[in-house]
C-alpha cells in the first residue's frame, strides 16, 4: 500500500511549514519534559524516603533542638530498632555559592539506618575511627575535586568557627534516586567543640531518626514516642520520613502547581499550533481528498491520511524533543545540581512525552478529518483550478 509513502511525502510537501511545526513540537516536548523532571526532582527526597524510618523533631519547630538524653527513652519504645541523631550544620565551603547539605550525625547508627549510601569497607572503618573524619557524596567530591585523605574546612554559620575535616570516605548511591551531594561528619566532634566554646548548646540534637521493625505500625510508634515526651520542656513531633520530606515540599507547593500548569499549557499551545498546520494542510488538499473519494477510496482512507500525517509530524517532533531532553537535563543537573541534587529524566516522563505527542497528533487531526470526510465530492472538486 502506498499509504505510508503518502504520509511521508505529504508531510514534507511544505518543508518550511513542516520544519517549523516539528521545531515547535520539539521545543514544547523539551520544555514539558524538563518541567516534569523538575517537579520529579522536587519530590526526589520524598520518593527516596524509607517506610522503615521515622523522624523526630521538636514539636514547636525544626529550629528548636531536642535533648540528647531522649535517645535512651526512644530506644525503649516498642517497635524501635535503631536510634540515630544529628544536626543540620549549615557550613559553607569557601563561599556561599558552593552550597551543599552538611550534617553532623552519629556515624554508626546513621550508616546502619541508611544502607543506600554505599561506602567501601576500608573507607567506612576509617571514617568511623576518625572523629574529625567526614563522608562526602560522589557528586560533591567530584565537584570540588576532593579525594580521600584531603582536608576540607567549612565555615560554620549556625555553629560559628572554621571546622576542619578529613575526607575519610566517599559514598555512592545505591541507585539514581539517592542524593550524592551530601556531607556527613561525627556529631561527637560538633558536641565536644560546643562543650568547649558554647556549653549551653552542647548535648542538643536537631533531630532523631529511628528505624522501626514494622512500617505498618509507624502510626502507633510515633504516637508512643510523642506521648513519652508529652508535657516535657521539648515535646516531640514524630512522623514518617516521607511526611517529614513532604513538609518541605509542601512549603513550595504553589510553585509546583504553577510548574505543572505551565507544562500542560505548553502542550495545549502546541496542540493549537499543530491543529492549525493540519487545518491548513487539509484545506489545501480538499481537492485531492475529493479525487481519492471519486476513485472509490472511503472516508477511513482519508482519515488515515490526515491522522497519519499529523501523527508523523507530531511524533517526529516528540522523538527529537525526547532525544534532546536527556542532554539538556544532564547539563541542567551539572549547572544547578546544588539545588536539584537528583535531576534525571524518569521513564514516566518519557512515557508522558510520548503520550503528549500522540495526543497532540490525534487532536490536531480531528477537525480537518471531520471536514475532509464530510465534504461532498462535487464541492471538493470545485475547489480545484
Amino acid at each position, binding site marked *: 500500500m*502506498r499509504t505510508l509513502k503518502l504520509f511521508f511525502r505529504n508531510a514534507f510537501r511544505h518543508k518550511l511549514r513542516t520544519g517549523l511545526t516539528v521545531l515547535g513540537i520539539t521545543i514544547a516536548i523539551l520544555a514539558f519534559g524538563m518541567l516534569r523532571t523538575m517537579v520529579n526532582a522536587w519530590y526526589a527526597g520524598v520518593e527516596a524516603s524509607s517506610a522503615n524510618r521515622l523522624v523526630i523533631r521538636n514539636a514547636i519547630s525544626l529550629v528548636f533542638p531536642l535533648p540528647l538524653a531522649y535517645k535512651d527513652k526512644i530506644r525503649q519504645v516498642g517497635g524501635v530498632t535503631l536510634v540515630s541523631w544529628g544536626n543540620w550544620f549549615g557550613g559553607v565551603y569557601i563561599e556561599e555559592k558552593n552550597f551543599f547539605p552538611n550534617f553532623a550525625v552519629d556515624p554508626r547508627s546513621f550508616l546502619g539506618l541508611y544502607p543506600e549510601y554505599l561506602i567501601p569497607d576500608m573507607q567506612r572503618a576509617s571514617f568511623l575511627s576518625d572523629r574529625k573524619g567526614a563522608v562526602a557524596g560522589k557528586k560533591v567530591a567530584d565537584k570540588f575535586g576532593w579525594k580521600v585523605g584531603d582536608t576540607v574546612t567549612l565555615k560554620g554559620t549556625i555553629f560559628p568557627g572554621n571546622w576542619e575535616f578529613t575526607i575519610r570516605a566517599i559514598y555512592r548511591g545505591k541507585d539514581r534516586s539517592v542524593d550524592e551531594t551530601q556531607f556527613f561528619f561525627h556529631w561527637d566532634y560538633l558536641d565536644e567543640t560546643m562543650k568547649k566554646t558554647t556549653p549551653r548548646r552542647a548535648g542538643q540534637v536537631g533531630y532523631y531518626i529511628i528505624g522501626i521493625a514494622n512500617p505498618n505500625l509507624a502510626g502507633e510508634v510515633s504516637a508512643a514516642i510523642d506521648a513519652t515526651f508529652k508535657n516535657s520542656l521539648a515535646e516531640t513531633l514524630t512522623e514518617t520520613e516521607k511526611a517529614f520530606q513532604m513538609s518541605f515540599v509542601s512549603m513550595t507547593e504553589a510553585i509546583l502547581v504553577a510548574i505543572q500548569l505551565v507544562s500542560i499549557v505548553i502542550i495545549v499551545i502546541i496542540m493549537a499550533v499543530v491543529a492549525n498546520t493540519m487545518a491548513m494542510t487539509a484545506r489545501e488538499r480538499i481537492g485531492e481528498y475529493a*479525487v481519492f473519494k471519486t*476513485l472509490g477510496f472511503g472516508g477511513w482512507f482519508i482519515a488515515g491520511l490526515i491522522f497519519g500525517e499529523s501523527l508523523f509530524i507530531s511524533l517526529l517532533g516528540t522523538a527529537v524533543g525526547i532525544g534532546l531532553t536527556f542532554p539538556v537535563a544532564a547539563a541542567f543537573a551539572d549547572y544547578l545540581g546544588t539545588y536539584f541534587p537528583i535531576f534525571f529524566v524518569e521513564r514516566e516522563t518519557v512515557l508522558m512525552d510520548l503520550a503528549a505527542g500522540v495526543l497532540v497528533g490525534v487532536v490536531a487531526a480531528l477537525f480537518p478529518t471531520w471536514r475532509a470526510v464530510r465534504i461532498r*465530492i*462535487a464541492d471538493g*472538486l470545485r475547489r480545484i483550478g
Partner: protein
Amino acid sequence: MTDQPTPCDDHGPAPVLENRPVIVEVRNVNKAYLRGSHIIPVLREIHFDIREGEFLALMGPSGSGKSTLLNLIAGIDKVDSGSIVIGGVDITALDETELARWRATHVGFVFQFYNLIPVLTAFENVELPLQLTGLSRAERREHVEMALRVVNLAHRMDHYPAQLSGGEQQRVAIARAVVTDPTILVADEPTGDLDRASAQEIMSLMCRLNRESGMTIIMVTHDPKAAEAAQVIRHLDKGYLNHAHP
C-alpha cells in the same frame, strides 16, 4: 462541419450504435441546489439513454447543468428525484459506501485540471484505483504499464506530475481512468486547460479508446472542436436536455 478533419479520422469509422444494448438509462432526473433560502433547479426531467460504446458529448452554456448531470451519472452526486441505471445497477438506490465501491470498478474519471496526486509518480497515480482491487503487486504493475503504453507515456512512468506537460498529465489521468477497464469513462472538460495541439492529442486518444476498445465515453465540453469526436451531442440549456447528432 464534417468537411474539416476530426480527431477521430485516424481511428476508423464510428461504431453503429443502433444494435448495441443500452448501458446508461437516465429517467426523469431532477436536481436542484439550495442557495440560502432559494431553491435553484439545475436539471429538470432529464430522460435519455446511452448505448454501449457510445461517445456522447454534453454541451451547453455555463450553468446549464452539464457538469451536474455528469456527476450524477458518475455517482459522485445524488439526484433529487428520478433514477439512473448503469449496467443494470440503479445507482440512485446505493448508499455512500456501495456507491464508492461501484465507482471504483465501473467509472473512470478525467477532469479538466487532471487532478493527479502531486506527490505520486505517473506510475503510482495510475496504480491508485487498482489499490482497491484484489490484484497482486505484479498484476497491478502489468495493468499500469499497459495503461501507460496506451497513452504513450510508458517512458515517463517515474516522473512526477510537476515534471510533465499539461497534455502529458491529462494522458496520465486518462491512463488512471481506464486502468480498471471501467464500464463508462466520464470526462469533464478534458481539453479545457490545454493548448490546441495537446487538446487534439487528448481527443485523438479518447477516440481511439472509443473506437478501438469500444469504451463508452460521456464528455462535457464547451469546445465544439472537441465535441466533433463524439457520435452523439446533447445540449443542455437551463436544465433541459436537447438532442443533436454531429
